[in-house]
């Protein structure tokens, strides 16, 4: 098993190497001392809430933003001396590109194909992005998911060794999202190195070999999704809310839980409350749940909500920052 801090070595030098990256905008330190290594063939995820510095980091890698400090090395090249070569060898999907609405899918791809010395044919890129039926449709008439797949096709048309996807599924409906995931799966299988940003935990868990969780411009956790989830301390999360009815009253009121008694239950690792919703991270769900029920009953409390789920990267973020990912 490899250490979470170094990527699995599939080649002698990493495909992407970032050292001491810093970038400040007028009043925000967007990236605050970032080191990363991504190996060839890896699918690497930058995960974090909006404003964590994911896009700034990826745009520094893409040569669109110049860092205040630090170095970027990609494919053995850097932006100062090898910019033209790098642009030929990387593929890019930006967060919010709107392609000209009155061009067709095929015309757009033919334009982008003409920028690259080597690459796949326009037909092949259309096939990869599964846009065959839309080939002669105008971009303005495509759905959100189709537009995103077109952006993906534009990123692939130069047959890149390294692919950057910035929030590829943001704003898509669940079906379109799964469709795009299948596409990225295919790219991974073809052995491409992919770096993507997302604020969807499930997306990172589903697609990424390794994940860096970012917050306030720094990496706060790095590893495989399984390694990161293991740091939560339990495999499962129990969530519940309780009410309490005073003797002689029929009006249930919010119950007060004695947390110390809950922590004392074998298998319960931690407890936190967020907006009256209690969260326990537990191991051996089948043993601890009956004991939790018993303890709450002993405290004279009624359950108004109760659910369990396997621990996710979301829980990792919550544990590390005390905030939810989708909180602004």
């Amino acid at each position: 098993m490899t250490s979470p801090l170094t990527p699995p070595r599939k080649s002698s030098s990493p495909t992407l190497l970032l050292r001491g990256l810093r970038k400040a905008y007028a009043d925000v330190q967007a990236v605050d001392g970032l080191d990363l290594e991504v190996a060839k063939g890896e699918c690497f995820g930058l995960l974090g809430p909006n404003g964590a510095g994911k896009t700034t980091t990826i745009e520094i890698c893409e040569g669109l933003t110049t860092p205040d400090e630090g170095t970027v090395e990609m494919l053995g090249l850097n932006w100062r001396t090898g910019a033209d070569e790098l642009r030929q060898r990387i593929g890019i999907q930006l967060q919010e590109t709107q392609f000209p609405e009155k061009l067709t899918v095929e015309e757009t791809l033919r334009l982008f194909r003409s920028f690259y010395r080597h690459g796949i044919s326009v037909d092949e890129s259309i096939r990869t992005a599964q846009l065959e039926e839309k080939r002669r449709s105008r971009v303005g008439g495509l759905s959100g998911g189709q537009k995103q797949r077109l952006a993906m096709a534009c990123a692939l048309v130069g047959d890149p060794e390294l692919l950057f996807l910035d929030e590829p599924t943001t704003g898509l409906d669940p079906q379109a999202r799964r469709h795009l995931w299948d596409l990225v799966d295919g790219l991974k299988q073809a052995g491409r190195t992919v770096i993507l940003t997302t604020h969807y935990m499930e997306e990172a868990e589903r697609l990424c070999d390794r994940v860096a969780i970012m917050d306030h411009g720094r990496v706060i956790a790095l590893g495989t999704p399984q390694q990161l989830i293991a740091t939560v301390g339990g495999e499962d999360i129990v969530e519940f809310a309780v009410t309490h009815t005073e003797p002689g009253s029929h009006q249930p009121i919010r119950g007060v839980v004695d947390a110390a008694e809950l922590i004392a239950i074998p298998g319960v690792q931690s407890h936190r409350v967020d907006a009256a919703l209690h969260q326990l991270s537990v191991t051996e769900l089948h043993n601890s749940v009956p004991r939790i029920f018993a303890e709450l009953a002993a405290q004279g409390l009624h359950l108004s909500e109760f659910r369990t789920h396997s621990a996710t990267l979301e829980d990792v973020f919550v544990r590390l920052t005390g905030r939810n990912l989708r909180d602004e």
Partner: protein
Amino acid sequence: MNKFRLGSLFQLTMVRFRLLSREPEAIFWIFVFPILLALGLGVAFRNRPADVLPVAATTPQLVQALAADNGLKARLLDGSSGTRALATGSILLLAIQQPAVVAYQYDDTNPDARIARLLADRAIQTAAGRHDAVSAQNQLVHETGSRYIDFVVPGLLGMNLMGSAIWGLGFAIVEARQKKLLKRMVASPMPRWQYLASFLLSRLVMLVIEVGFFLGFAGVVFGVPFRGSLWQLGFLCALTSMAFSALGLLISSRARTMEAASGLMNVVMLPMWIFSGVFFSASRFPAVIQPFVRALPLTAANDALRANMLQGTGLSHLAVPVAILFAWFVVPFAVSLRIFRWR
């Protein structure tokens, strides 16, 4: 330069044509609007036979004397109703018989009334027996090239070249920037100069169609003359279009929103619509502002186009406007390349 590089320039230029041809409004403004304007002005300012001026007199003798002139239409009115007719503009002049003299009532700030005064006096003096000291003869000239439509067509051509270049380039670039397409393009290996060159190239090709269509129409329908070399006229149109394209590039080199760009374009074009002699000669403006008026690219363009079409002047005699246009091409282009915001 290897093949793939030119291939991308070709693709970029083709994209410009495709986008333009799929924009019905653009086709209207570039092709239909100038022709409608020329048609409207041609009809409004067509040359008519000289007007017959309405006048009146207080005695039948005077009316008879006035009626002898073809340029006047005279009737009999007494003093008070004559004054009323003058006030309402139904006559331009009232000739009043007084004991010793003939008095003319007219408004000397009205050019037509001044002409009526000259004609009326001549008619009355002739009727009273005056003889011309020198015999004179009229030779009438209605030459093409001196009509208003001949004057206005080169002006409309210049104005149209300005509009299509500045609007065409400015809006397309700012839209691409606003929609983050520009950012996506520079993240690809596209050579940046090719992106800008594709606008100039497509402009030059569109120019042939646009100018040919408009001047062909003006030539066939109004018989506007083409006295200079057509090649030189083509060169002047191309130079004009490149100068305004460079200006459009400069306007759009920083603007992030369509609103900002649109405001800037109006600020740049408005003085030229007013001062550059599209509808009337730029030399009518006071001498103090003439250096400013002469330095405007549209003034130079209109002067050069008129000299070529109406007087058949060769390029060697148009060095000044050509130099002004060339400067307007080089300087804004160089500046915008330096300050262009690619994202």
